[in-house]
């Protein structure tokens, strides 16, 4: 991984933290409300059977759950490596 050259001021750490937090929140909301809007507006599309016993809607619903796990993993990984090490720099 490239060395972290961001200045370790509280303002910089705080800005980075909120940028990540808000982007991931917006991503989660976009995925979830995308799913809900499809349920509301295009039921025939979600009802399309793509394999015996599996509709597109079921696949997408499971993918929303999986995407919640993936976004959680992205955040925890970022926070455990970048955020915590910059906080360590601030503590010194």
């Amino acid at each position, binding site marked *: 991984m490239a060395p972290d050259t961001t200045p370790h001021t*509280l303002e910089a*750490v*705080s800005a980075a*933290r*909120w940028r*990540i*937090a*808000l982007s*991931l*929140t917006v991503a*989660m*909301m976009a*995925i*979830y*409300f995308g*799913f*809900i*809007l499809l*349920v*509301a*507006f295009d*039921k*025939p599309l*979600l*009802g*399309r*059977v793509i*394999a*015996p*016993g*599996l*509709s597109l*809607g*079921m696949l997408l*619903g*499971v993918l*929303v*759950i*999986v995407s*919640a*796990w993936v*976004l*959680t*993993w992205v*955040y*925890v990984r970022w*926070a*455990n490596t970048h955020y*915590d090490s910059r*906080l360590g720099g*601030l*503590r010194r």
Partner: protein
Amino acid sequence: MIGTGEPNAIAIGFFLGFIVLSLAITVWAARKTHTADQFYTAGGGVTALQNGLALAGDFMSAASFLGIAGLVALSGFDGLIYSVGWLVGWPVVLFLIAEPLRNLGRYTFADVVAARLRQKPVRVASAVGSLAVITFYLIAQMVGAGNLIRLLFGLPYEFAVVIVGVVMLAYVLFGGMTATTWVQIVKAVLLLGGASLLALLVLARFNFNPLALFSEAARQYGDGVLSPGRLVTDPVDAISLGLALMLGTAGLPHILMRFYTVRDARTARSSVAYATVAIGFFYLLTFILGFGAMVIIGRPAITQVDAGGNMAAPLLAAAVGGTGFFGFISAVAFATILAVVAGLTLSGAATLSHDLWVNVVRHGQSNSREELLVARAATVALALVAIVLGILFKGQNVAYMVGLAFAIAASANFPVLVLSIFWSRLTTAGAQASTFAGTIAALGLIWLSPAIQIDVLKNETAWFPLRNPGVVSIPLAFAVAIVVSLLRPVPEEASRFHALERRLHLGAED
């Protein structure tokens, strides 16, 4: 027949076994509960995995186990809409709330708001929001408990409500957060283990291929069970429900309180990740269980026992695992309710004692001994209130009450909490006005909605067209906070925000 309210010896045996185990935990926990800090936070030494499981145990109510399995059994795909909505709130808790909350507060989420604004007005406002959420959530759990225990064990409704109230009171009163945490952990493990085993027994009949199960359901009931049905018809109502489910999780006092039981923000972070994995996995299991019940039990047999479908999972357990397994799953459902009501009552006691008594009535001049005494008195009062309301509200729709609690949490608590973490210009008046606007809008719009006006009061029309108030009440609460704060800026409160910024990231220890 199983589940029709005949006393069932094996089920009652498992149920007594769980009570004995949980009371043994309480006796052990009582020895470690001597100060207010130990009572509210278990001393702050809970590990990430323990707290993750306890969060899952605090959150997965009987509504999500029996309710969603039943909804899937009766309407197929539509059950997934609720599961997904309840899960996606967790990443939001992680990204926005968990770590700042841990760093800025001590016992309640109002600590975070009060850290930078004037104590008394915001604590009173937050207490109103918290107690409204806790009351509706408690009613839903108590009514659910009464109905279930009648069906599962053949005990009378009122007797069941009293048992739940008294046993939960014992956990919280003597064992505080330590006992509550371990009851929630044991419940989460039993629930995840029991649901996994049940899903495996179902899938064993379909060569361990879920798609074979879904195909069989589609063959018996038509492809309609695999596609969206009647649950979501109006797009605006769908968004409104979605907003309340998603943001409500981040405003539930009993969930937020759990972040104070861990050592630091990093542990809080990991604990949400464990909880999100456990809860997501559980919702995937309930989807299998619902379809399993649809195919193996059949819809007519499920609705014959309980019109709402709540008995789908226990009936399925009886069909694939016999009476013993039915007894086990029934006891797990009971443990589920106890763990949730214990968490709710503890957070209500913290609000009454820490927010209202210590910081408003006594102006923060109170010692730990007095705070603990008041918290215990509040616990007894809340348990009595829960029992009385549980009996008064017999026959009310449980899912609707839970929806109400989420709508208030998302409208009254979430906006103020998120703004006090993110926005330097929030003022005391803004926070106060926002909490009251959110609470009143959520309650008022529900009163004016078709769910009350047409379904309950039998009127022809409803003044407010939506069943869920979230799409109006949540933006309204944000707008009120922002407008009121900008109209009368308070520079000292903004500068206190900047002074707290270091603590928000690094915690209070340095």
